[in-house]
């Protein structure tokens, strides 16, 4: 579950990378230092190898002088007899030869210091020829390719011994570093040094690097944690605010100081979403309470009527009257319920609208015909100028729209007034206007006529429930259309509906 936290995941990855980088860097630094040390030591070993080698490069003599302090040139080999072919060349070298080191070479080896340079020389047959006094007791003979040695004559032997020896790679042996070379005759010269103290120094370097690396790692991790926390804080704020909002407090908003960063933008988007949510909830609450409110009066009628009638014995006519008024009330509630449900479904986008081409002028004509009797009653005349206009949509619902507008126009009209209906198709738009010569709508009511339950005349005696225009507007907008109203009090009102017309010709 630690892995579920972004902060921890960040920290983990960051830690891994930091460790990798630090380890890489530390190892490289250590290797560089170690390599440098080794090269230095090897260089010094090499410096001492060569003089020794040159000492040995003198051709061997037949007889060793007993006293190496003689003035005889060192390592002179005087053959006691002429070599004979049957003599194996190795035999020539069997004779021990003196190994006298000139003083300047000797100075290179600090024989008093156990950590100083030492040397060991072996003969071809791995017998120790010479060793320095500070050489460790057990120095194994290094192995290496022994050159084939086939001198056939003293001159060859001389040439051979004068040749440069093969350099060999130095070796580390325990606490010692040794370099050696193999002379052409097969002797092995080894120079070495105990490097315990250098080793210790390197260890100190390694430990120091690790300690410093560890310290940097800790600092880095701490710093990374701090940065991650700072970065996560806005997210935590957002999360906490969202929790409060989902718990019901829709008025909360995320505090944003910086609006430009990615999180600031996220907070901004969330805030506007919360605002929309709050508004939608408020509207829904308003709607629900309005709906319940509207039902009060018809229920009240039924209750008072029935309670009053049941108070005593009534005649059949009186019972009938009561039942009829109850029926009127129930019808009113039914209409209200249907309107509310239609609105609710339109709101939720659940009204399945047909999408079929039809002629809007025909729909209008049908509505006018249906409402003619009502018009005649007022009386109100209906004048229509209709162009055939094809639209795509739900003809039945748009008929509702037309009927609603016409009904309003007839009802809010004066006796002897007129209703003018026009329909025109132009520029891809179908424009329908319904104008009446009624009392008009006041300026303060005008922007609110499409609101739910809004009635310009606040009483209920006109019989409507205030939802007709809301439903009309919802249907029009569901068809991607617009509806507007213009009115002059005392003169009349004009409703204008615009719908997208089908582009193909009628």
């Amino acid at each position, binding site marked *: 579950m630690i892995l579920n936290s972004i902060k921890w995941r960040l920290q983990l990855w960051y830690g891994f990378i930091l460790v990798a980088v630090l380890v890489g860097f530390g190892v490289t630094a250590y290797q560089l230092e170690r390599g440098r040390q080794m090269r230095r030591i090897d260089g010094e070993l090499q410096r001492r190898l060569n003089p020794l080698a040159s000492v040995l490069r003198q051709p061997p003599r037949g007889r060793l002088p007993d006293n190496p302090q003689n003035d005889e040139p060192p390592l002179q080999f005087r053959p006691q007899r002429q070599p004979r072919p049957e003599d194996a060349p190795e035999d020539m070298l069997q004779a021990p030869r003196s190994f006298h080191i000139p003083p300047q070479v000797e100075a290179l080896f600090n024989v008093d210091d156990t950590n100083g340079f030492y040397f060991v020389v072996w003969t071809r047959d791995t017998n120790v020829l010479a060793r320095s006094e500070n050489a460790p007791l057990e120095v194994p003979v290094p192995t290496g390719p022994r050159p084939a040695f086939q001198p056939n004559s003293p001159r060859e032997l001389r040439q051979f011994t004068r040749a440069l020896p093969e350099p060999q790679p130095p070796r580390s042996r325990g606490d010692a570093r040794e370099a050696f070379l193999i002379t052409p005759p097969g002797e092995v010269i080894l120079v070495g040094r105990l490097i315990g103290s250098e080793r210790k120094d390197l260890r100190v370097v390694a430990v120091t690097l690790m300690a410093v690396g560890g310290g940097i790692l800790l600092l880095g991790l701490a710093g990374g944690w701090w940065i991650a926390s700072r970065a996560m804080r806005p997210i935590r704020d957002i999360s906490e605010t969202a929790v409060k909002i989902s718990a019901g407090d829709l008025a909360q908003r995320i505090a944003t100081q910086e609006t430009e960063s990615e999180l600031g933008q996220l907070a901004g988007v969330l805030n506007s979403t919360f605002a929309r949510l709050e508004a939608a909830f408020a509207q829904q609450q308003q709607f629900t309470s309005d709906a319940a409110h509207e039902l009060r009066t018809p229920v009240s009628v039924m209750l*008072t009527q029935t309670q*009053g009638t049941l*108070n005593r014995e009534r005649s059949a006519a009186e019972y009938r009257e009561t039942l009829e008024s109850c029926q009127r009330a129930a019808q009113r509630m039914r209409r209200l319920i249907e309107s509310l449900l239609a609105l609710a479904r339109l709101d939720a986008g659940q009204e399945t609208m047909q999408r079929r081409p039809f002629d809007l002028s025909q729909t209008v004509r049908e509505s006018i015909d249906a409402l003619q009797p009502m018009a005649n009653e007022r009386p109100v005349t209906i004048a229509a100028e209709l162009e055939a206009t094809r639209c795509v949509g739900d003809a039945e619902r748009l008929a509702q729209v037309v009927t609603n507008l016409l009904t309003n126009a007839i009802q809010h009209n004066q006796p002897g007034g007129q209703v003018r209906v026009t329909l025109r198709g132009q520029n891809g738009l179908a424009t329908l206007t319904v104008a009446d010569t009624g009392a008009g709508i006041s300026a303060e009511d005008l922007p609110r006529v499409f609101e739910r339950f809004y009635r310009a005349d606040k009483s209920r005696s006109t019989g409507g429930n205030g939802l007709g225009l809301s439903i009309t507007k919802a249907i029009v907008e569901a068809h991607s259309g617009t509806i507007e109203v213009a009115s002059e009090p005392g003169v009349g009102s004009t409703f204008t509906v615009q719908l997208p017309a089908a582009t193909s010709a009628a």
Partner: protein
Amino acid sequence: MRILVVEDEPDLLASLARALREEGYAVDTANDGEAGLFNAESYDYDAIVLDVMLPKLDGWEILRRLRQQKKTPVLMLTAKDQSRDRVKGLDTGADDYVVKPFDLEELFARLRALIRRSANKTTNTIAIGDVAVDLAARHVLMGGKPVELTAREYALVEFLALHRGEVVTRTQLYEHLFDEDDSTLSNLLDVHVSNVRKKLGAEFITTRRGHGYCIE
């Protein structure tokens, strides 16, 4: 008792008026605000049942204007049920506030309470010698036994009992016992007074010549 009912919903108005009349009240009706205010200012009703949402003039406005002139008890009838609406109603001068839909019996009881309060009576029974007028049950007992009275007769007794000690003029009686639907026959009142005297005793109602009637 004469009551004015102002309500724009016709079915509701009709059934309320009928029910109240059957209770023995004289009932005047108005279905818009202006007519309602006009009536309320013209007569001294014993109580007014006033709807809030009215055409032409709403209930608040009627109440405000009425209160400048009269102290008639007003019971507001409305679909607005929020506490703040009740507060507004009571603060504006209503004496009671009833939310639709309402129970008819409850409405009657509240009206009775209003009328009782405005007559400064605290109990529902008024005892006059041997006669007990039960305002809640709307009947009269004499010696513990119920007395058969018509609705008008009871209304007369109730009115005089609630104004006990005062002299009530004939005009007042007309105004409080008959509504605009009744044909005003002045001797109808005498008939009712005489009938009550027959049932409850001649001394029950005292005549003050030239002034009116009273119960002492």
